């Protein structure tokens, strides 16, 4: 009888020991002071620069959002345009969180069939026509022509969609897909 009680006691002791061992292992595991690796977002587009050229010179529209989805709103600038003129336009996309800045336009060109820029115009801006096309003959919009109307103000909303329906009727609703960029510029036409 005595032996069995002692054995039982031993068993209990062993369980307690096993558990305290586990506790030790547990706490020793916990003391890691590893500094986590910083993540610099790769796909992010921080800057869109639209260069508009005509015989007289160059005008630039730019949207720059260096903190990505951080609290700071994009810094939007737009040069004045000349009335009743056709500009040759081109778009450059950059990721300026990296040094040197990464050119995202190249990625869009490579996957041109999965991307398209859309242009929404109001006021003194009258027309945009696409000057480039993807492998399937559908427009991309990295290169385009913008025609201005009479003097006044107008807006141009440039939207980049990836994986849109192609071909589409030129509207965002018909194109679907995911929005990479959606930026409106208010422009003075003089």
């Amino acid at each position, binding site marked *: 009888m005595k032996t069995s009680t002692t054995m*039982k006691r031993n068993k*209990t002791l062993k*369980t307690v020991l096993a*558990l305290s061992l*586990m*506790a030790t292992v*547990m*706490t020793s*595991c*916990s003391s*890691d002071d*590893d*500094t*986590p*690796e*910083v*993540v610099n*977002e*790769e*796909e992010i*587009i*921080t*800057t*869109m620069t639209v260069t508009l050229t005509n015989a007289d010179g160059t005008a630039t529209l730019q*949207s*720059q*959002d*260096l*903190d*990505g*989805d*951080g*609290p*700071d*709103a*994009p810094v939007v600038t737009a040069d004045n345009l000349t009335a009743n003129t056709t500009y040759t336009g081109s778009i450059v996309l950059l990721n300026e*969180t990296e040094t040197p800045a990464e050119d995202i336009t190249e*990625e869009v060109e490579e*996957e041109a069939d*999965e991307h398209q820029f859309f242009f*929404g115009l*109001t006021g003194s801006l009258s027309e945009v026509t696409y000057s480039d096309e993807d492998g399937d003959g559908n427009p991309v919009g990295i290169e385009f022509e913008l025609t201005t109307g009479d003097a006044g103000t107008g*807006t141009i*909303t440039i939207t980049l969609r*990836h*994986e849109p329906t192609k071909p589409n009727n030129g509207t*965002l*609703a018909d194109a*679907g897909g*995911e*929005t*990479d*960029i*959606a*930026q*409106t510029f208010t422009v003075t036409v003089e």
Partner: protein
Amino acid sequence: MKYYLCVFAIFCSTLVYAQDCNSILLGEIVDFHDNSPLSGATINITGKDYTATSKENGKFSIKQLCDGVIELEISHPECTTKFVTLTINGDTYSEIRLEHHLEELKEVKVVGDVPKNTNSGQENILSVKDIEQNSGKSLGDALKKIAGVSTLNTGGNIVKPVIQGLNGSRILILNNNVRMQDMEWGEEHAPNVDVNANQNISIIKGAAAIEYGGDAIGGVIVLEPLPIVRTDSLFGKTQLNLASNGRGGNITSSLTKSYKSGLYIKGQGSYKRLGDLEAPDYMLSNTGIKESGASLSVGKRDFIQGWEGYYSYFNSEIGILRASHIGNVDDLISAINSDVPSVVNDFTYDIDQPYQEVTHHLGKLSYYRRFEGLGKWTTQYDFQQNRRFEYDVRVGDDADKASLDLKLTTHSILTNIKFDAKQGLDFKVGALGRYQSNFANPDTGVRRLIPDYDKYDFGLFALGSYELNNDWTLDAGARYDFSRIDAKKFYRTSRWEERGYDVDFSDIILEDLDTQLLTNPVFDYHNFSGTLGFHYEINGKDHLRFNYAYAQRAPNPSELFSDGLHHSAARIELGDLRIKSETSSKFSASLERNTTKWGYTVAPFLNSINDFILVEPTGVEFTIRGAFPVWSYRQTDAVLLGVDASLYNNWSSSIRTDHKFAWVRGTDTETDTPLIHIPAANFTNSISYTNPRWNNFLISLESQYVFEQTRYPENIEVYSPEQQENVILDINTPPDAYHLLSLNTEASFTLKNTNDLTIGLSATNLLNTNYRDYLNRQRYFADDLGRNINLRLIFNY
């Protein structure tokens, strides 16, 4: 001991049972597992002082019964007491199977399906039938059967239980006595449990069960395996479900081998596969699910001591409605204004981006030992690992890369001693130690939504219940929890300053990386909780319970650290480092009656929460991708007031109706405005017909009416770049009320053993009604599920 008392009371009572009724019940009591007759069982008719005892061959008879429904209480020295409802229709024969209960006599309480985690709390139990009916669904869907429980959904497959208006970290899920640590903080993070793994499910509304944790302001869900019998037996159960909506199904199977010595081994496995779900008018593209689970337990239980080893694995891959992945606030506006989702494809079983994949491992070792004249000591170690991947729609080289990759590892040790040597007084003290570590994989190439952290918890509790006399039981408890969270988090410098952290937290910066800051927030929380209540049994028929629970909950990592664009929700979520613990004071009461003829429960509650943590839309932030709604966490004082009520009536021996109603009102008392995401009132009525003579045939029709939530926070005004003006973002407006019908029918058949095969057919949303639910995060994008016809086969062997 209670058992003896009960039997003693039955023998003492000598009352002549005389009524002008002539039916005879001939019964046979057999062992559930080997069908051997059980002699010496005591059969008592509830509400009548008549007792019979089963003979050597297990048989007994009761004469002079009236036709109708009776309830029998059957007790046997080696079995759990069982309550059986029988229909007497002329001379009736019935076989009653009793389960040899593993736990020895002193542990067997003379109760039926009565939950027993608390005496005074509002507690409900889910029947095995309910679990079987919901085998192909989620835990949240199964729990909806209980009045006062609703769900917060992200589509049809990601379902979080909501108890009396509260969800997420405020609900503690206890899986086989292990507190689930599965990133319950996210609104699109469903509990990682297989509803088929544990067939004993009960729910405690509120923080009354402080043994399990002091922070369960919403409630506790207790999932336990059915007790294993202490006899030489081998038995199993397999259930197959086929569903029309999703064009798939699930299979679950369990096998248990037990020995007289108390040794047992039990294995269980489940697999589920559904393709795209369907709304009445269109496919809900990319809403398929693949889920598998397995568990194994080995143990030995006897009176003096016992041990158990348990391991469970759960993996789910859940598609997220393709149309719910949106780009910016304009996409959200057009989604809200459109009746049809923006992406509707043909049916497929494929699960594409966006989707989530979660794996949960849970291991447990437990041991108990009883000390004569003192009580029972229990100790347990458990390990959990939760790995979560969220895949978003990405392009280029990152297309197949996860956007979120978190690994949460938790170790816990708990121990408690229950002093129950003194009749009528139970007293329990216990302690808990826990270490948790979260690792956010930087390989995603996306800034971490939840940072790396270590968390340490330590808890102490004491609770007791005292039976004042036969009618009154008092219970009380107190608990202290210490919690430390030690995180390493990167903040964007612009965000750091915008939040004003540069003023309040400048001392926690470890490194300045120009555009980002590495910080080391370390926060300690000291939380207290306590509960006090009584249970008063009135005339043995009615029960009055009252409970007061005081509980404190430390903020979760999401509430503290969220910062950035949650791609899958297209919203910027902002936590706050200044958030402190929230404190709840909840008064709850319930009045219940359970008789064979009819019964009811009325359970009102008042939950006053100081520093209530909530997340709600607060505005928009602009990025080059457009404007995104910002959801910010904030603290306020809140009051939740509500009532859960249920009623049943047996109109005849075969027709029964059930009625349930739940209502809750949540108010932000600082601003006197409604709280966000409070479930709408709902009213459920069902009628069922059963006929035991037609193979236990059952048919029931259920009507569920969900009211429109009329109390919600104001919508926000946002600037729409597309429309070039400020517009109202209709993000808080709840959808209309809706009414759904469902039908369920089943029958049992005998292949080898009595009623070993059950076949059931059910249909939910019978009329294929179009509806949207306020607590479904995908209500902006698509209608809820259409009709689903479900066939189930349950085979016991």
